[in-house]
């Protein structure tokens, strides 16, 4: 079977099995949350845009927020044969993209997204095993469900596997 690379857009989430890969291009202040079930060779990726659904006026798309996206991702992975007791997490993103005078809420959104994702992982009792967050540069991530490796690509800030 040919491995597919499944794209996960802004405010979206997907679950896939090995040998497929999950990918999110151009993460800035957004955070890519990758959950992995090594035994079931199952992975999920959520492209989180905002910290919490509670402050939002419209919560139709639950994949957009750290809290609801994580709830959804855990459920979806269990429906696909995963067991939440085995889930581990890797996260990347949460940068501050603009060189800017001032620190309005919009400029700090990346940092707040990372905090919210980490809090919600703790709430679900999921161990965060690796992260590549912050800074002022964008990231494209490719999550290899065969190995659990997360490839982080940047422009001008190198490439690494976490």
């Amino acid at each position: 079977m040919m491995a597919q690379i499944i794209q996960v857009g802004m405010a979206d989430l997907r679950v896939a099995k090995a040998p497929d890969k999950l990918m999110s291009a151009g993460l800035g202040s957004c955070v890519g949350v990758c959950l992995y079930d090594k035994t079931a060779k199952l992975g999920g990726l959520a492209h989180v845009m905002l910290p919490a659904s509670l402050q939002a006026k419209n919560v139709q798309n639950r994949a957009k927020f750290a809290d609801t996206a994580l709830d959804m991702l855990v459920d979806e992975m269990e429906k696909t044969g995963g067991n939440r007791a085995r889930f581990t997490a890797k996260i990347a993103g949460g940068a501050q993209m603009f060189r800017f005078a001032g620190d309005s809420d919009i400029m700090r959104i990346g940092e707040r997204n990372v905090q919210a994702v980490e809090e919600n992982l703790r709430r679900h009792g999921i161990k965060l095993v690796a992260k590549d967050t912050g800074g002022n540069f964008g990231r494209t991530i490719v999550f290899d469900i065969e190995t659990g490796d997360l490839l982080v690509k940047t422009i001008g800030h190198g490439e690494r596997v976490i």
Partner: protein
Amino acid sequence: MISDFNQLSGLQLDALREVGNIGAGNAATALAQMINSKIEMTVPRVNILPLGEVPDLTGGADRFVVGVYLGVTGSARASILFVMPVENALHLVDMLMGRNLGVTQTLDEIEVSALQEVGNIIASTYLNALAMFTGLTLIPSVPALGMDMAGAILNAVLAQFGAIGDYVLMLETEFKKEGQDVVGHFFVLPEPGALQTILSALGVNG
């Protein structure tokens, strides 16, 4: 508040397009004066898109771009973005600084400042035209500049709209240098509440 953009009537969309046309026309003239060269522009499009599809407008989420961002406050809140492929931004700096084409290879402090000033002038010109037309007070913020993947540049700007809805409405114009490639894409994203204010001021409220 208009939360469902698809409920906008044809008349309202036409009015937005017309306002965008006047604003962008003035902005193109200002840009042309800055670089002493003719600038062409496309007829503005009114795009209503799910958040996730916005990066496609700039050629894909991992396209290497320069983005200049300004927030708009006053009677109607909005975001303004001028997005250019990096090679075009470097050419634009060459033209602004009177250098030979291809001389600028990196964006240091002075180049960043020059591009921010371009963003500033285009946005202010656009907003002045919009203000004259609608009688609204529109105040641009200090411009911010980012150089990276298009998706990454757009994230934080779109996050503000994500808190309100799943779709954004954006007025889009392409600026082209005479006989050459696109210089950049100019986007105006009114917030949903602001959209109503603008439509009322234009006399096409509902």
